[in-house]
């Protein structure tokens, strides 16, 4: 059994009809960071201190090898020694990962694509109790996604899916709650099985944790079931009100005004040594202060601007909130960069540091000098196939 102290959810700001969709600067990793920070309580740094392992669950990762897991760890504000693993799967895999994790684990589930969302649970020694995890492995490959293929192969027969796919799983998992919360199928189907669905739960991995959020407001529910075409996982839930829930979900912005790649194909040059030199400072937002005269530098400088002292200064974490000093929207198509998008110089008081960052999640010309907001991890550019992450400025929205 495990306990969950915090649950965080994230949906992108861009709204396409009834669905949220990623912006061009978002992917599985950036969404995972957003949900993970919400689960840890972005404002409470103590949360991150309790995490020694991160599990990322997703059925459609953007990258299988390379930067993403280290970027995820840095983006979450965790120590570089934090173990991170990637698990391919949907909602049952996410629920199983949460129910079988040791305290000190952050499990993040991401559902990319249409209706994109991410959700994370912080497994700790206190909070909502998940017990008696049960699993039924079952194979009815109604939906098959081959690696590298753009479209899934779908066997379109909803009755076959219900009777041959879901029914054996649900019956195999039958627990004490007569009306379990079921994710992985439409509400209508969940009701046929005597359960109930989760309103507006995203398809895929993140759905499992949106179900747990639902449980925190429904004391009568004691069981959560997650299914897909390969697996069913059920857990018994109690003390649901003891999990802190934080949503990082902003008012929708019409997806039609998203920046777009219009400049044609181009390979943006990459320098691996320069990437490496900047990595920790950039991804962990660590600046440097001169021990002799106190002048701050970001990125670090070999020679202090204030007193000329040579060598490393004292590292310090930059604040993640700031104010726009100047901002311009770039309308001209820049090959490899989605436009129109705004670039801003952002002050980070009380430090003297400013950063250059693109403006995220905001319609054209909406961001103005003096606007306040926060820095969020985003994909800056893809350079010679390598995703280059950094921080974007996300203006506050009137609540």
């Amino acid at each position, binding site marked *: 059994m495990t306990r969950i102290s915090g649950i965080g959810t994230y949906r992108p700001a861009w709204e396409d009809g009834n669905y949220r969709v990623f912006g061009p600067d978002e992917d599985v990793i950036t969404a995972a960071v957003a949900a993970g920070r919400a689960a840890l309580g972005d404002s409470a740094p103590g949360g991150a201190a309790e995490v020694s392992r991160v599990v990322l669950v997703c059925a459609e990762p953007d990258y299988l090898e390379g930067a993403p897991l280290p970027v995820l760890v840095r983006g979450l504000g965790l120590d570089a020694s934090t173990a991170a693993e990637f698990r391919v799967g949907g909602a049952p895999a996410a629920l199983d990962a949460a129910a079988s994790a040791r305290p000190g684990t952050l499990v993040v589930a991401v559902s990319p694509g249409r209706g994109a969302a991410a959700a994370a649970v912080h497994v700790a020694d206190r909070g909502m109790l998940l017990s008696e995890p049960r699993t039924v492995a079952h194979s009815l490959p109604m939906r098959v996604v081959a690696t590298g293929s753009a479209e899934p192969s779908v066997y379109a027969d909803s009755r076959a899916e219900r009777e041959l796919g879901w029914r054996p799983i649900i019956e195999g998992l039958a627990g004490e709650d007569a009306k379990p919360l079921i994710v992985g199928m439409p509400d209508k189907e969940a009701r046929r099985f005597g359960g109930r669905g989760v309103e507006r739960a995203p398809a895929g991995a993140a759905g499992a944790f949106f179900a747990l959020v639902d449980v925190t407001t429904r004391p009568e529910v004691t069981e959560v079931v997650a299914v897909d075409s390969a697996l069913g996982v059920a857990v018994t839930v109690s003390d649901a009100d003891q999990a802190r829930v934080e949503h990082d979900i902003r008012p929708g912005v019409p997806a039609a005004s998203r920046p777009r790649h219009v*400049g*044609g194909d*181009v390979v*943006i*040059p990459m*320098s691996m040594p*320069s*990437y490496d*030199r*900047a990595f920790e400072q*950039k991804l962990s937002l660590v600046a440097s202060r001169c021990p002799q005269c106190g002048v701050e530098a*970001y*990125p670090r400088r070999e020679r202090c601007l204030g007193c000329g002292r040579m060598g490393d200064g004292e590292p310090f974490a930059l604040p993640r909130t700031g104010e726009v*000093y*100047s*901002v*311009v*929207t*770039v*309308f*001209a198509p*820049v*090959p*490899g*960069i989605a436009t*129109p998008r705004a*670039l801003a*110089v952002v002050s980070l008081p009380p430090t003297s*540091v*400013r*950063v*250059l*960052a*693109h403006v995220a999640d905001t319609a054209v010309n909406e961001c103005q*000098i003096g606007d306040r907001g926060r820095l969020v991890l985003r994909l*800056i*550019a893809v*350079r010679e196939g390598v995703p*280059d992450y*950094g921080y974007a400025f996300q203006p506050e929205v009137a609540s």
Partner: protein
Amino acid sequence: MRPVAMVGAGMIPFGELFTTGMKEMLPKAMAAALASVDKGMSASDFQAAWFGNLQPSDGFPAGVLADSCGLLEIPVTRVENQCATGNDAIRNAALAVGSGQVDIALVVGADKTRETSAMSTFWDWMGMARDKAWDFPQGLIAPASFAMHVARFMHEYHVQPEHLAKVAVKNHHNAVTNPMAHLRFEVTVEQVLSAPRVAGPFGMLDCAPQSDGAAAAILVAGELAERFTDHPVWVRGFGLALDRVMHAHKQDMTTFPSTLRAAKQAFGMAGVGPEDIDVAELHDCFSGVELMNYEDLGFCGRGEAAKLIDSGATSVGGRLPVNPSGGLKAKGHPPGATGVAQCVELFEQLRGHAANQVDGARWGLAQNVGGPTAVSAVTILEAN
């Protein structure tokens, strides 16, 4: 330093010169400068040459200049200092002549911005001027880099888009009668304001074109000047200064500190002040940048640039005509050539036969600001 005189200066018309390569542009620019020497001069008279060039084309710059112009017997040095390249090349040549080591020096500036595909140009140029890890992947293209300053400038001093548009209108007007100019057509304030947007407050018509072009000037020791002309122009002052390279490190974006520093050097050397200048060629790569330059050079006080353009003082016929050539905005902007071409215009102004002549001009000033707004050069010339 001994006095340095400019005895010849010429250029080829700027434009999208698809049919003229670097190796054709350079000898044509040199020939234009030689042709302007009143009493004649030949290429074999040069003792050293400096070549201002940002983006090499068809080979390494110094070699291409020496080879295409037949300057194999003399030292040729390439100068690259972003958009301040042209005036920095003149500064280097003037230092050599002033020192007594060189009596007759050639300065050429040239670039072929249209030689690579429009797609790759952005990244090629940003790659030269931006930190590879930090600013480069942000796609901070030149218009955005300057717009960031002008947006803050407009915010602090309540400058209106119309004030920016007036710069474009004025400089386009001047270019119409300049046969060397790239964009020889008038524009109206309304056209500028309604043009497709590029970045921040800049629309298409606020931006200098991407031009190909070359310009050349000939500097000689003062005591030799009368061998070549009775109407030399004197190189009285020059300055070259830098600033923080990354935008996040610029404390006050309503000014270009590199221009303040370069102007202080140049005015100090020439022994004159901004009030003495009769005609100026300023760096108007984007309309609003000309307004900021007025203030940085002391042509008006802080926050008074909008009033100055409104007054008409910087139009030809005004108190201090700025960019009578059409400026970068309309004459064109092949970066390595730009500063040299500004001095070609001043050479003609101070000798009294410019296309848009400023009556009785005695002191002329040329200024560039460039890179990621981190380098400026100022040259001050005086009529004989």
